[in-house]
């Protein structure tokens, strides 16, 4: 019988260990399991549904878990025309989402009011909540939405949330 040291070499896990930074690991996990809050307000929501269906399959990017509860969502996809009547409800739902959270403004209306230059339509959801990715199109095709999602993933991979937390902690001491 030999002693089994906990630090001994184990051939079974060879090749399954990756050395990385904590931020990178966190970002990798976050960006590949973005649970969307589908804020479907107009025709863009139809394209959002198409992006979720089999042909375009948003599940390839880990974003297929549409959560209608803001508490469980990571990214709000504002898909459609934001009327003034709806605007504060959208902001309220955004406020209820837990950090970290991101916003995709899908389509011309959510980005800038689109063709609705009128008394009833908010001229871009970025007037109320911070937007990470704007997607052009009226409505954008599902490929455009997936491209926006990939850009958001890229943006998340560049974040340094843990490092910033550490800096804030050090600064507060």
């Amino acid at each position, binding site marked *: 019988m030999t002693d089994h040291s906990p630090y001994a070499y184990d051939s079974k896990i060879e090749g399954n260990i990756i050395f990385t930074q904590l931020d990178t690991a966190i970002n990798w996990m976050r960006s590949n399991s973005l649970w969307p809050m589908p804020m479907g307000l107009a025709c863009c929501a139809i394209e959002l549904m198409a992006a979720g269906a089999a042909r375009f399959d948003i599940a390839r990017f880990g974003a297929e878990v549409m959560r209608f509860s803001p508490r469980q969502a990571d990214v709000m996809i504002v898909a459609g025309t934001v009327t*003034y*009547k709806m*605007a*504060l409800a959208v902001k309220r739902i955004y406020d209820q989402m837990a950090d970290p959270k991101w916003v995709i403004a899908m389509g011309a209306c959510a980005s800038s*009011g689109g*063709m*609705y*230059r*009128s*008394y*009833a*339509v908010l*001229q871009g959801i970025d007037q109320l909540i911070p937007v990470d990715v704007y997607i052009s199109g009226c409505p954008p095709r599902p490929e455009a939405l997936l491209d926006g999602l990939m850009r958001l993933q890229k943006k998340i991979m560049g974040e340094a949330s843990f490092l910033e937390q550490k800096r804030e902690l050090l600064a507060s001491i």
Partner: protein
Amino acid sequence: MNLDQVAAAISERFGPDVTGRVEFRGELSLSLQPAALHPVCEFCRDELGFDLLLDISSVDHFEHEPRNELVYELYSLARGLHLRLKTTAGDDEPSVRSVCDLWPTANWHEREVWDMMGIRFQDHPDLRRIIMWDGYPFHPLRKDFPLEGKFSDVPDVAFTAPAPLSGGPFVTAPVNGTTEVREPRARRAGDPLPDAAFTAEP
């Protein structure tokens, strides 16, 4: 019974209250004194069989007198007849009698007319706004209301701000010409008005 007989029956009963009659492509429109609207509607429903109120709409004849016009679309399901009744409402504080007691469907139609055009309906059971929110101070489909909107704020409910029109796309230019001329697909703020002779490439 056909539309001529309907018109004859209404004229016989209400004579001087019927101020106009237009027939266009088989559609009959009768203009009525505002006070006669409710009795005529009741007569149409009970005696002439117009059991369905299709729609109530309103027209703003801005800078003309009387300013507001109301249009009631009546339909008889049994006979397949369509009758249009028109009446007027004055300039300030326009108001007509509600027909909710005749057709319950009038409830929401009249709320919409009140919301968008600011015409009140007497004896309406629940005259609240239906599209805009309670507290919104304007009636946006009136001709003197600007397309871009006005500032308003009801805390915790909604706010509005004027939209930047900037003469950009989707805004009709005040020149003569076809729609292609008046609304070119690309136009930026500060661009000169389109030339009436200019025709956009198809």
